[in-house]
């Protein structure tokens, strides 16, 4: 599913170049659940942005589901994100003036689906994540755990091949956290490939494989 070879990425600060990712080579098979751990500021999110086709590496190659991502332009990247990827972020970002079904249906908006179809599928997904009773609410009226469930519903909207989750339990208590983890595991059991970033060892243990990110380099975890 994911195949990266020698990915490098650095940020340009005035007067200096700060390397963030060094020589990242990562393979994730279809249907795998992979967690990446590590202290903050080591480049985990940068890697996830590259995998999520939100950003481009400076050098190296990246193949996602047999498509060469490293050679694509803005339009093609947007298309890949739309068709193959689902995102769950730590700080739950929603569009605050749209109700929950419209927020969940956001990926459908850019796929040319009719509004009625969009809302229909969004409502189905919200029911699946246990929020069928809050359809007319705005995102600002949700608790942290509820927000993440909505975020997962939105990530699933376009039936992605790969789910990328950046600290999805970062702001949650242990009860809500394990609920989200269980949800991810169920999705993985149904065949969805997942790459997860987390600080929390308990969360990471749900994954098939765990990587440690340290100073821009990736290594296998010893547990």
């Amino acid at each position, binding site marked *: 599913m994911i195949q990266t070879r020698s990915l490098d990425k650095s940020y340009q600060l005035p007067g200096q170049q700060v390397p963030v990712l060094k020589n990242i080579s990562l393979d994730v098979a279809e249907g795998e659940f992979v967690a990446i751990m590590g202290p903050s500021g080591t480049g985990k999110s940068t890697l996830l*942005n590259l995998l*999520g086709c*939100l*950003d481009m590496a400076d050098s190296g190659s990246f193949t996602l589901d047999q498509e060469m991502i490293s050679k694509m332009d*803005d*339009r093609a990247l*947007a*298309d890949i*994100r*739309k*068709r193959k990827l689902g*995102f769950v*972020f730590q700080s739950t*970002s*929603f*569009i*605050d*003036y*749209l109700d929950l079904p*419209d927020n969940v249906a*956001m*990926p459908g*908006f*850019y*796929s*040319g689906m009719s*509004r009625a179809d969009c809302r229909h599928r969004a409502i189905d997904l919200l029911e699946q994540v246990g929020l069928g009773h809050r359809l007319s609410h*705005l995102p600002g009226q949700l608790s942290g755990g509820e927000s993440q469930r909505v975020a997962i519903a*939105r990530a699933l*909207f*376009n039936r992605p091949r790969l789910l990328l989750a950046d600290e999805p339990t970062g702001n949650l208590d242990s009860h809500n956290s394990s609920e989200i983890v269980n949800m991810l595991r169920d999705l993985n059991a149904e065949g969805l490939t997942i790459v997860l970033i987390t600080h929390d060892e308990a969360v990471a243990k749900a994954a098939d494989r765990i990587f440690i990110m340290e100073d821009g380099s990736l290594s296998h975890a010893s547990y």
Partner: protein
Amino acid sequence: MQATNPGLFSYILPAFKMWQVKRLQALLSIAGIAIGVMGFVVVVAMGQGARQEFSRAVGVLGTSTVIVNSTSTDSLPQLNSQMLVSMKKLMGHELSAMAPVKQTYRTAYMQRKSQRMRIVGTSSAYRDVFSLALANGRFLAPYDLRQRQRVAVLGHDTAMALFATSQASGKVFRLGREWFTVIGVLATDRSPLMKLSGFQTPDTARSIYVPLTVMTPKAVDDLQFSKLLLKFADDQRIPAAIPLLQRIFGASRFSQQKLELIIPYQLLIKKKQFQNMLELFLLGISSIILTVGIAGVLNVMLVSINTRRSEIGLRRAVGATRNDILQQFMIEGLMLAIVGGTAGLLAGWWLGVIVSSWFDLPVLFDSQTVLTGFAIALLAGVLSATYPAIKAAGLHPVEALRS
């Protein structure tokens, strides 16, 4: 699979939902455009009104009318029959009509009705000077003056007031102690009345015209009157005729300000020049308002994009291209312009009605004014949305998501 873009119309509903939540922001933008458009529309409508009034007044008076007006307050006659004779001798070939006028107010009686009326004593030429049309009957004739016939031509409103019909020819009424027979009624005249310095267009609808000779006991060839209306055959000849007129009437009378020459066309031109300047001044003010409005919208949209960075990042993450973001913000800007423009047009119309009724200024809205006002609103919307929209579209998804 090719990327499918959302249709342009699909941005409209979400934009309305956003306005519902961010009311103040939307209201400020709309108000900026609306005030600018309102200012523009009112100014242009006032200009159009003045232009229409001008051309109507020219239509009534013609460009070739000159009025000799007696301004003396003492009882000494300033204008008399001898002058008429000299005029005819010296300038007859230049004139197409010449009418003496003496004006007074008297009470007209008809059965139990009585009303104070403007009585105009004049000759048959009066009709030619003002190109008056008759609804029925005839105007005064030279015969009426020679024979001192007690006949009268009524303005349309006067006929309605006295007889409740415009078909009043042949009916009689009383002016003071004398009975008059109606010989004709003027056609309805809806020309606006204009006051220019020292001169007022005749209120023909509310007047009674009688032979000048019946207003004075003096001999038919020894009349006195307060105004002489001259219609020149060629308006180009008016400037050259002024010295001659002064000679006929006695230059000293002009210098003593007992007589004045009124050339309505020149007064109209002066008034129009003043209106043009006023219009230009107001247009300047309204374009300043519009510029401030555009700057306001621009500012509001820039702030809006800053507060909506995470929305932009999110939309990019779920598959929006730069172009999709550009379209979204352009359409939001255009919607502000359409709503603001419509509000501005309505407010402008309302303000125009108030201006015309409170300040007695002519105001005219035509389709061109309305269309231009709306086009300006759209232009303002496009101008103020383009930069913020380009900025939003240029945001890197990662940067946008980070905020």
